[in-house]
């Protein structure tokens, strides 16, 4: 630690720390328009000037490192003048009045314009007004109201700028607003390792550009919005709700889009979400990063597209009813069904631990059944594979260790797409820790660019490939093709190696095989400590939480078999289970609780409208058993109620006494499972990692090859962009970029079959058929096609009825 004096006050700070961060942390305002906390200084904006005793002239606080006995002045008149002078130069080239008006060149300050508005000064017509860092900087350095053009004829800058890019559904880039601080470029490069943003031109013509200078969506941008987070002006803005994102409430909660469970801040106005920002202090795995799903899927459907009324089926139509009527009718229907036979309960994996606990109690106490999930078969396949080898499905690997690991093994369909932020951490390891990354996957994922070795098995054989590598590490002779991978594995050191496995979300056979192969590999490398070096990432955010409270532990290969009645708790059987639509049609009583018109809702005899995860209070237990808190950030639409409340009231109508709120429910969970005690005790903070001991055993069990017929194999997996709830409702804009509503075909197969981009093609196994436009790409290997697990409402599940790898015929449909 060093002691420094700032404006006469004594401050303790770590020696060598960037002075600008120390100043900010100690409440000393310092303008800095290009610095990003934690990254190397850029020293471009020149506004963070301070006076350090000793060297001549003013210093930049971003490039100054704290030294003991340093004496710093931040508030002398000279400094204030110097800072103002620098900011005035920035303002000289910052767009000002009436930017968005086509008539702006005809108006003068104070004119009354056709819209009966006074011609505005500067920020009033800017979408970032009142939340702009440049604006705040001007106020803080005493320049609000500063007019660079006083006394001149013009009142705007006449340098033509490239037109704004508003061509994609996620973000807008308006070069007029840009001050070339390059924060976006550095965030994209150094935080995301994407490098989609660059500087083009030079001198006065220096510009921020995406890719090689075209539209954002034509670059390799993955729309994480890390650039938006750091942009000090309105140059980079979220497209959705751009003009209204001035929240009255910011709520810290947890993203519901994948098992990383990134901590987010959701801004809302009048109960509706309008912006999401990462919450850097919440989840140590995600830190200050989220992905396109976390940032935009709060907005996956417009409020009017969500369920706002409870309904009861009368004949062929769904009739709106009050909440009380709906609960009573749902309870009546379920009780009636229970007299006829078995009533099943399906819980979706975006339900919280507390909601799942209620559902499980309803299943057990009202219907004497075990609550299951549409993901149940996949969950059980993974669990079985892990328990056979490690004695438990709760794997102790800590995901915060990925970013600093020296060796990272990734066994996944495409980690970049399924668990994006963890993929960023793998890249952190590769770039910052110079880790050797080994990717085992049939798809050419973006991580391959960061990998020291890539093993590319045939589709569905990732687990087998991992198990074979495990055998090779143990002493077998590796095939030459994987020799490099074996070398990396043999050099992997305990304590600095992580094996990350993201089992397939659709096929139980493939998912189980992947988990088994990953476990075998961990055992081969680290023996009894295997589980400490392994993380298994489930397909959805709260899979582990569901399993912890006993959901989906028991069950057969198809949870819809043999039911007289069904309670669906925000679950999507039609997206997960083969032949689910027909099976649902055969169940006479279906009570569905959901926020969207899912396949189950459409077939339900009673529908309870709920308010999706962001309306919930509760807990998610994510991939490495971090219990992350959710707080109600939005209001359910219309009559819809938070899911917990509906379950509680439904339970009451079924004659059960259930906990009154989420906190009480978590208390019951903690009593049932002591590992949840710290989560229940948590008062401050957004999450806590549950205690997961090293697995009790480490015994490799051979992994069998999965039988597959002749033909083109389907590779499936979660894609990065499709919204789960919108896909469940089969919304045409569930995937707004329209990249993954395509069937991806390899270049070789496309050439052989005469398929070009955008051709409508058909894949069929004789029973099921999916028709979609083709996208020819090197991402898929010859002999496979990739179909997103969420394409057309999860249509691909229908191909995976058996435990074999699905094989299809592919071609251009014959038209009559």
């Amino acid at each position, binding site marked *: 630690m060093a002691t420094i004096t700032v404006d006469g006050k004594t401050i303790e700070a770590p020696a060598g720390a960037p002075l600008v961060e120390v100043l900010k942390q100690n409440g000393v305002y310092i303008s800095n328009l290009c610095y990003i906390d934690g990254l190397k200084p850029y020293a471009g904006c020149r506004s963070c000037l301070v006076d350090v005793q000793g060297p001549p002239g*003013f210093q*930049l606080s971003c490039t100054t490192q704290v030294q003991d006995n340093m004496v710093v002045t931040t508030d002398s008149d000279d400094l204030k003048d110097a800072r103002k002078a*620098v900011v005035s130069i920035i303002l000289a080239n910052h767009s000002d009045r009436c930017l968005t008006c086509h008539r702006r060149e005809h108006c003068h300050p104070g004119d009354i314009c056709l819209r009966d508005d006074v011609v505005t000064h500067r920020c009033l017509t800017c979408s970032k007004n009142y939340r702009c860092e440049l604006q705040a900087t001007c106020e803080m350095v005493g320049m609000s109201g500063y007019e660079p053009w006083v006394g001149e004829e013009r009142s705007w800058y006449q340098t033509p700028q490239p037109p704004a890019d508003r061509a994609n559904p996620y973000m807008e880039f308006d070069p007029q607003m840009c001050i070339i601080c390059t924060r976006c470029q550095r965030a994209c490069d150094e935080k995301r390792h994407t490098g989609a943003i660059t500087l083009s031109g030079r001198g006065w013509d220096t510009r921020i550009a995406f890719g090689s200078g075209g539209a954002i969506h034509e670059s390799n941008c993955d729309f994480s919005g890390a650039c938006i987070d750091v942009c000090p002006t309105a140059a980079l803005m979220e497209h959705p709700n751009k003009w209204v994102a001035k929240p009255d409430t910011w709520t810290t909660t947890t993203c519901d889009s994948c098992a990383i469970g990134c901590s987010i801040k959701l801004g809302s106005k009048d109960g509706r979400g309008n912006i999401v920002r990462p919450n850097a202090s919440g989840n140590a795995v995600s830190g200050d990063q989220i992905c396109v799903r976390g940032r935009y899927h709060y907005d996956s459907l417009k409020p009017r597209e969500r369920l706002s009324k409870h309904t009861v089926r009368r004949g062929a139509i769904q009739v709106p009813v009050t909440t009380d009527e709906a609960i009573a009718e749902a309870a009546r229907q379920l009780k009636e069904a229970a007299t006829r036979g078995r009533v099943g309960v399906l819980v979706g994996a975006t339900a919280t631990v507390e909601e799942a606990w209620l559902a499980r109690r309803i299943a057990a106490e009202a219907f004497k059944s075990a609550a299951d999930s549409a993901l149940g078969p996949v969950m059980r396949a993974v669990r079985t594979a892990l328990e056979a080898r490690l004695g438990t499905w709760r794997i102790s690997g800590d995901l915060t260790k990925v970013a600093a690991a020296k060796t990272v093994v990734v066994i996944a369909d495409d980690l970049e797409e399924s668990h994006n932020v963890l993929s960023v951490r793998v890249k952190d390891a590769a770039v910052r820790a110079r880790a050797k990354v080994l990717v085992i996957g049939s798809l050419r994922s973006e991580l391959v660019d960061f990998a020291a070795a890539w093993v590319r098995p045939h589709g569905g054989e990732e687990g087998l490939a991992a198990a074979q590598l495990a055998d090779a590490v143990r002493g077998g002779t590796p095939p030459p093709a994987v020799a490099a991978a074996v070398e990396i594995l043999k050099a992997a050191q305990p304590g600095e190696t992580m094996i990350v496995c993201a089992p397939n979300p659709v096929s139980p056979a493939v998912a189980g095989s992947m988990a088994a192969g990953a476990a075998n590999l961990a055992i081969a490398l680290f023996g009894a400590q295997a589980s400490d070096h392994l993380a298994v990432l489930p397909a959805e955010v709260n899979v582990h939480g569901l399993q912890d409270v006993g959901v989906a532990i028991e069950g057969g290969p198809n949870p819809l078999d043999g039911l007289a009645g069904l309670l669906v708790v925000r679950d999507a059987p039609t997206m997960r289970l083969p032949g689910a639509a027909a099976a649902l049609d055969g169940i006479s009583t279906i009570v569905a609780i959901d926020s969207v018109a899912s396949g189950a809702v459409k077939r339900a005899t009673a529908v309870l409208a709920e308010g999706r995860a962001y309306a919930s209070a509760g807990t998610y237990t994510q991939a490495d058993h971090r219990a992350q808190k959710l707080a109600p950030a939005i209001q359910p639409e219309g009559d819809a109620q938070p899911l917990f409340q509906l379950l509680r009231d439904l339970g009451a109508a079924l004659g059960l006494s259930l906990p009154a709120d989420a906190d009480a429910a978590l208390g019951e969970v903690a009593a049932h499972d002591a590992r949840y005690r710290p989560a229940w005790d948590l008062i401050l903070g957004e999450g806590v990692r549950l205690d997961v001991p090293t697995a009790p055993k480490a015994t490799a069990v051979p992994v069998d090859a999965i039988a597959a017929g002749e033909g083109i194999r389907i590779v499936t997996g979660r894609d990065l962009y499709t919204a789960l709830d919108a896909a469940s409702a089969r919304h045409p804009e569930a995937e707004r970029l329209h990249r993954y509503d395509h069937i991806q075909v390899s270049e070789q197969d496309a050439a052989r079959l005469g398929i070009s981009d955008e051709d409508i093609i058909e894949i069929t196994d004789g029973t099921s058929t999916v028709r979609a436009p083709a996208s020819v790409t090197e991402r898929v290997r010859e002999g496979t096609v990739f179909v997103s697990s969420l394409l057309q409402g999860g249509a691909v599940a229908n191909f995976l009825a058996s435990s074999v790898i699905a094989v299809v015929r592919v071609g251009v449909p014959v038209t009559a």
Partner: protein
Amino acid sequence: MTRVFVPGDAAALSVGAEEVAEALAREAPARGVSIEIIRNGSRGMFWLEPLVEVETAAGRIAYGPVAPADVPALLDGGLLEGKPGALCHGLTEAIPYLANQERLTFARCGVTDPFSLDDYRAHGGYRGLARALALTPAAIVEEVAASGLRGRGGAGFPTGIKWRTVLEQPAGQKYIVANADEGDSGTFADRMLMEGDPFLLIEGMTIAGIAVGATKGYIYIRSEYPHAFRAFSRAIHIAREAGLLGERVSGSAHAFDIEARLGAGAYICGEETSLLESLEGKRGLVRYRPPLPAIQGLFGQPTVVNNLLSFAAVPTILAEGAAFYANYGMGRSRGTMPLQLAGNMRRGGLVEKAFGITMRDAIEGFGGGTASGRPLRAVQVGGPLGAYLPESLLDTPIDYEALAAVGGMLGHGGIVVFDDTVDMARQARFAMEFCAAESCGKCTPCRIGSTRGVEVIDQVLARADVPANLALLDDLCEVLADASLCALGGLTPNPVRSALRHFPEDFDRAPAVTIAATSG
């Protein structure tokens, strides 16, 4: 067989040296004489290019400027015997322009065949390296320090101190980088040397590598110098073949090799940190300092970045001893400085003199005054960011400190002369315009401030509220000078402020009037 020298230097080629050489090769055999044509470097007397020299018993006789059409008549008039006549200037060495110089660095340039190692050795080459190989690295560094050599790129930082810093860094990969991104207006010394005496530079860089423990050197050559790039690459190849570069330099235990890299076509890439970024394959953005390149330079490793002329001075220092070199010069500016006379100059070219020569001696004595014959009005020393100095300051000696005392700077030694038709307000505007075009785009004052400067000067030129705009211009200059990241933005106010100080009359009248008044 008579030896005839026709320069292969880009400056000579640009005025037809190639055609002259062809004409000689064609016409001489036609007259039954066999000649050997040697493509030497330039002597640096550009008004005489193409300068043809003929070797005679008395020495080399100079003819120039020779046009291809002159060749038959010259041959018939006894060119090969060195007979006097039209275009003949007698003994080259006796031409006052050359005779009055003190050529250490450029001693061989134009004399030897640039690609002949034998020629280079015959004229004293590789004596410096031989001595260096006999010394410890620390002793080499001390020799350079004792010579008083200061960076010839512009900043004038003592070369010995820079080398010592790198030498003192922990062992590991270190680099030598020669800055040959010669972009200052009116400068050409780097190019002349790369084309005219490349082994000197290779020798200097090799000595530097041995001195600081670097095994790899890069030379970053301006992209507008394709001819120099080819010439220097060829010289590297020859040196490598001869074992003067490579795993065992001259058979010693030292490894050193050089790679020539073509620049990225930006003035800012001559700034040392920007140059390093560019060498690393990135956009040429200036880095902030510290860390100094000597501590974290190329690829984050300790790096000596010196101007090409600094390296070129080193072989002489090692061969003749520090005292020999330090014996030249004045004050804290030791040794010789290759000055480059350009602009409106009667005798443009290279003048290497010990520090202490006055600007007047250089411009009037060597340069012969303006080419137009009109009175000299302003001189810009040190490139586009150097101050504009009036005629009254011409007696200032060429010396880092003396020039700084009058608000000027030596820079890379370029001297550009303007006669009395120059509009200094336009020149001030040009300085801002230059900065706006050549800024790396990183720091605000340089990128935006310079454009704002152009506009404000335009307002002045349009006579709009001149006092207020001049005050604004002064403010802008202050921000540029104080808050810019590197010397480009920091020095841009130099020409602007000096023009304002020395030539205020040009800012107070419309440009058309200026020209009419001065030319009337």
